[in-house]
């Protein structure tokens, strides 16, 4: 699968390396070149300097041929905007967007974005662990 990841933080870099090692064609985009140090040395995909909320940068990153786009920067709003550009301007098949704020996540889900809130996801996981330990 051809995948474009926006945001080379811990999650972005880990996911990029993991998909790459499974033979997927991965491009990762970040506005800070220093962030690419987080990529595993074995990463064979493309690391590209650019702003994922800008159509031209996305086009340069090859978004028109991508089968999936993931918005994983630290900024909820940046993710929301980039994801909507990918979905509504470039018609990428699969668009997933990280939104920390659970309320915004819920709203954008109702607006048709595939949004994931690590906040609720992780809190639920912790709760489950905690309750299992309590028994």
């Amino acid at each position, binding site marked *: 699968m051809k995948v474009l990841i926006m945001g080379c933080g811990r999650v972005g870099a880990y996911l990029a390396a993991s998909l790459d090692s499974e033979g997927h064609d991965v491009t990762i985009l970040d506005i800070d070149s220093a962030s690419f140090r987080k990529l595993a040395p074995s990463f064979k995909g493309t690391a590209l300097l650019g702003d994922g*909320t800008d159509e031209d940068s996305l086009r340069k990153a090859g978004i028109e041929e991508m089968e999936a786009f993931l918005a994983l920067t630290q900024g909820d*709003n940046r993710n*929301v*905007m980039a994801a*909507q550009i990918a979905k509504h301007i470039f018609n990428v098949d699969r668009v997933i967007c990280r939104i920390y*704020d659970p*309320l*915004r996540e819920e*709203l954008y889900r109702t607006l048709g974005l595939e949004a994931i809130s690590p906040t609720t996801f992780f809190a639920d996981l912790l709760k489950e662990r905690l309750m299992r330990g309590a028994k």
Partner: protein
Amino acid sequence: MYIIVVGGGRLGYYLSKALLSQGHEVLVIEKDTVKVERIEEELGSICMQGDGCETAVLEEAGTERADLLVAVTDEDEDNLVACQVAKHKFNVPRIIARISNPKNEALFKKLGIDVTISSTNLILEYIGQEVPAYPVVHLLELRKTKLELIEVKISAGSPAVGKKVKDIPLPPGSLLILVIKDEDIKLPAQDTVLHADDRVLAVTKIDTEQDLRAVLAGS
């Protein structure tokens, strides 16, 4: 009207000041405490500290009774989200977003933000009006339509020179509404003849602007 202004920078400050003096009820939402203090000192308790993109903050601000929300932070993505949350979560009837990247104008429209103000485009348009080589000036996009008001300068080499209005092959949906010759203005009739250096105001469909430009101004 109850107006919420998201972003208490310089633009938000002057905008709120003007809106207050027009008698509106104004609330500014600003993240930075220093800016909040400055606004409160100068304009009174009209400012709330918080992130205007957060549903909880907008709820506390009473956004569901707002008549208008204007998002004027420096960041296009923040303005987009503040407007989308206001529109879809709180059903605010009118929303206005400030845009820095002119490309975002089309995107925001596509995402349901009806009114966008791009300072970059505004300045570009003024440059266009000041530079005589530019035959078409966009004056106004007519709200809730795909129509716009433009000004076209008829140059000596224009295909419309010496022609009557009825003989100019205007694209469908276009209308000439005013002919300006120096300081004189005239409603164009069917047999009004256009001359070089006339300026013509026209309403046209945005899609067919190029065609209108071609018949009036040449390429």
